[in-house]
């Protein structure tokens, strides 16, 4: 099923037409969904992603974020999923570098361009009820409210504290689970939620009224190209350059050492979340850009002080996050 509105939006933007780099590197102008999507039955069709990515090069177009390019137009397979999956179209900065400006009933994020509902109503809802609530919301003179995508809600997460967000920008927050609009591959009755009582991202049952809602407004914008060159994936939206290689079985200190030796660093939790591809599972990642991506926890450099210092990891089995003791082992993908 295609979205007519997105079709016109895509047509207005036109096809950006990714080109091949002189050195032969692949230019991938499409977001995650450019690769084969998980089919309706939840099967993972990511196995041939590398080949498909190559074939996309000549026909990619500049679509709104989270949509995919097909036949030179922007489209999605399921309206319920449009706009809810994929990479961020904006920098993913740590809490200290954010620019959240309270403006009456809303909060404007001057880094991402998103506008947030400032206070929530304290009512836990099912996933569908949450979507309906946002769609019906009129606030701050706007009516274009929607449930945030996972990577959007991550931009107001502060996983080092409880409540896990900026309490000056968002006063008296509900430090509990909040729905995202993103649904994981292979779990049609589930959706991602973020726990603002601690910071983790989880997959939860969509039909349980167990999470709260903080709506967002604002254009998602096109996802700029990501470019693969010299063993790195350059992401223009976030400004990050990721190692295509990874290492497994490292402690936190070993992971840090590895990154330093490569002239790189460990990613933050927020940056690492951008590598999650909800359209895939095990791994929940784009294997065209990152071959042999293991469905394993990856270290972030974002800490959590629970009396002992822990670090956040993102598991690329489904894209959830958790805390891990520094002496345990996880995988690492360095970033610059």
């Amino acid at each position, binding site marked *: 099923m295609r979205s007519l509105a997105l079709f016109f939006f895509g047509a207005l933007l036109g096809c950006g037409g990714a080109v091949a780099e002189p050195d032969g590197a692949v230019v991938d102008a499409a977001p995650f969904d450019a690769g084969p999507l998980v089919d309706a039955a939840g099967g993972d069709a990511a196995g041939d992603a590398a080949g498909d990515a190559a074939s996309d090069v000549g026909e990619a177009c500049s679509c709104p974020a989270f949509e995919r390019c097909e036949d030179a137009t922007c489209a999605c397979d399921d309206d319920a999923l449009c706009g809810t999956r994929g990479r961020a179209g904006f920098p993913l900065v740590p809490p200290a570098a954010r620019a959240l400006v309270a403006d009456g009933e809303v909060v404007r994020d001057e880094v991402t361009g998103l506008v947030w509902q400032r206070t929530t109503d304290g009512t*836990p809802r099912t996933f569908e009820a949450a979507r309906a609530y946002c769609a019906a919301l009129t606030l701050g003179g706007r009516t274009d409210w929607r449930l945030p995508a996972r990577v959007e809600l991550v931009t107001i997460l502060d996983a*080092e504290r*409880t409540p896990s967000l900026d309490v000056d920008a968002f006063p008296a927050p509900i430090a509990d689970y909040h729905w995202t609009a993103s649904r994981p591959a292979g779990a049609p009755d*589930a959706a991602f939620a973020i726990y603002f009582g601690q910071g983790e991202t*989880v997959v939860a*049952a969509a039909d*349980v009224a*167990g999470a709260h809602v903080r709506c967002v407004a604002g254009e998602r914008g096109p996802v700029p190209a990501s470019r693969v060159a010299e063993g790195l994936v350059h992401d223009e939206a976030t400004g990050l350059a990721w190692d295509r290689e990874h290492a497994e079985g490292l402690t936190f200190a070993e992971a840090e050492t590895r990154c330093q030796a490569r002239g790189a660093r460990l990613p933050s939790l927020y940056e690492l979340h951008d590598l999650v591809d909800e359209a895939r599972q095990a791994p929940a990642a784009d294997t065209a850009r990152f071959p042999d991506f293991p469905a394993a926890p990856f270290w972030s450099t974002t800490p959590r002080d*629970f*009396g002992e210092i822990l670090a956040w990891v993102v598991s690329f089995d489904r894209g959830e996050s958790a805390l891990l003791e520094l002496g345990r082992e996880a995988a690492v993908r360095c970033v610059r």
Partner: protein
Amino acid sequence: MPKLDRRRFLTALGLGAGSLYLPSVIGRGSRAAAQAAPPTRIAFFITPHGMVPPTWQMRDPGSLATDHELDLRGLAESDFSRTFQPLHSLRDKLLILDNLTMATSIAESKRVRNGNGHDGNEHHLGQAHLLTSTWSVQRSGSTAIGGGRSLDLTIGDAVGVPGRFANRIYGFRHQHPYSFAAANEPAPREESPSAAFRDLMGFLPSGPSEPSEPAPPTRAERLRAARGSVLDFAAGEFERTAPRLSREDRQKLERHRQLIRDLELSFGGPGGGSGPVGRACDPNVTLEGNALRQFARLTALAFSCDVTRVVTYVTGHLQNADFGAPSHLNMHQDIAHNSTSDAGGYSPTMAEHMTNYNRAYAAQFATFLQELDSVPEGDGTLLDHTVVVWCTELSTGTHWRDRMPRVLAGGAGGYFRTGRYVYYAPTNVSPFSWGRPTDVGPAESHLHVSLMHAMGMRDRDSFGLSQIEDHNGATISLRGPLPRLT
């Protein structure tokens, strides 16, 4: 894992001996304790989240407005609450307490909500207060954490024997720690059973250089070495290496085990030991099974050998498959948060999953108790001379902190009258009106005082905060033991 070779094997047998070490306190402790009555011990068994009141509380004919109790000993398994049915076989040794309140934690919720920028997460507050019963440390920009020396360490201070461990903390991490040396200073916790064993028994593995081939030992050397190897080899090396031993080496091993028995006789004196601890202290621990079973055995070992008298065990997290819940459900958001009828997303299905979750932990608790109960000691068992406290940081998955589920097992040497289900009528107004009834049962702080008294600390009349204010500003005294336990 240490490499197994002939030299190491001989060393482990006590025939190489140079690299082995056993704190002399073990032998002294065994001999000294053999002369006396069994000491009283305490263990805390901590599981995460909370329970489902209608399925952990007994079908109790009494009025909720008045104190009353049930005799557990005459109840059939079908009469037990569904959550606690796995404990039915141990009912004579249980003391189930209904309607305690984690009052200090609720009082802090009131303070936090009146302030700004504080961590009011009920899990975090529950974890901070569970064993401290005092204001948490609110760390700016971070989380709330325990604000004082915890009960387990405090009891260890009082009952620990010089030269031995005052307490041991085993198991896993829920979120924040429960045990604290001081405010914002978590006490060390050991997650590895094998490391815990080495720690208990004073086993020091061989250094980088392997010992040289030993000369034939004298009998005195064999005994001295064997005392060291008794406790390290039998449990540590045997468990790891036995499957790979040759027939000849197995025979050597058996001879070594006989030597251990001889030593135990020597500890206890002629006739197999005159005291109960000498007989019960069996270092031949096999670290088999899951972590719970291993830690249960280690606790039994530590208690029976009087290496420590206080153990805190933090259980591991359950996977959904462990309690029959579908894998797509998130344990915290989907199940726990919707398991009581006051939850927005309540469903009987989630309550059922939460009940099964706690039944699984009840089965673990039963395993823990059975390990202690399997060790004869004096005229009873090790469990009889211990009190094991099953506690949770919350009352329910929906963050209640009144009607806390609490199970005491073992009589602490006859201090507690077991075989009973004791209900406490509401006696206090809650410190904070937060959607729960304001008439609540006695503060758990009183139970802490009772536990200290059971461990011989009779001069203590409070632990942590000694008073708080109720919702109306009246004083709630937290002094004195919990009535009706002895």
